[in-house]
């Protein structure tokens, strides 16, 4: 897929920048709509992006979201610099959360972010290194939609 993407864009995300939360996901949604992808595909990609973007804002220092669209799939890659996730299996458990009360007051941090990314993805890969950061790869098939 890496070489045959027909559309690519990259977005920076700043840790702690709650004021801009959702900006990247909304931009990705608009771009995918403009590319003519089906609404359910666009929605899944937007939700997965939003959850990933919020995780960078809530937990990391900075990150980059990369969008690559090919005729067969949408791939969203997120790399952050941050504390990393000490126990990825635990973090993938629905309801497990290390969110602060402030995050919860905003309506987030219910421990559903990573499980919801996996739910909306056809393929999902996560790697994390304590003290360094986290890498996510989210792939959503476009059901043969031709761009």
């Amino acid at each position, binding site marked *: 897929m890496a070489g045959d993407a027909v559309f690519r864009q990259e977005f920076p995300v700043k840790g702690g920048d709650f004021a801009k939360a*959702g900006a990247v*996901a*909304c931009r990705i949604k608009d771009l995918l709509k403009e590319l003519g992808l089906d609404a359910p595909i666009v*929605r899944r990609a*937007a939700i997965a992006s939003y959850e990933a973007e919020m995780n960078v804002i809530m937990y990391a220092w900075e990150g980059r979201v990369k969008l690559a669209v090919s005729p067969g799939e949408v791939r969203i890659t997120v790399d952050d610099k941050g504390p990393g996730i000490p126990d990825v299996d635990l973090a993938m458990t629905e309801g497990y959360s290390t969110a602060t009360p402030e995050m919860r007051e905003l*309506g987030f941090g*219910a421990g*559903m972010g990573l499980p*919801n990314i996996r739910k909306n993805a056809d393929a999902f890969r996560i790697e994390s290194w304590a003290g360094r950061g986290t890498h996510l790869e989210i792939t959503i098939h476009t059901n043969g939609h031709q761009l």
Partner: protein
Amino acid sequence: MITLKDIMTGINGELLTPGSPLGLECPAVFASDLMSDVLTSAEPGSFLLTGLANPHVISTCSVADMAAVVFVQGKRPGPEVVEQARAKGLPLIITKLPMFEACSRISALFGGRIHGR
């Protein structure tokens, strides 16, 4: 068919986004203060009832394809939130009713046959 206008009337609501299509159909309702739950469980096209009135509600609704937002318990969003919704074409309603009463009245509008969560 129950519309945005029917909902507004049924809960003594005030439309915060003048010009929104009052004939917009409400096919389902999702009630929550947790945006995580909206992202996880809401059906696209639903009306969201919430007691949360921050900008993240609008971003969440945009991402999750929610069709309108009802702020319950008199939780009035700030002008920047209203402007954000207006820019995205998302109708906003505010009601003084608490969450349960608002849900109950909307359910009654549908004769109890609405799909809500």
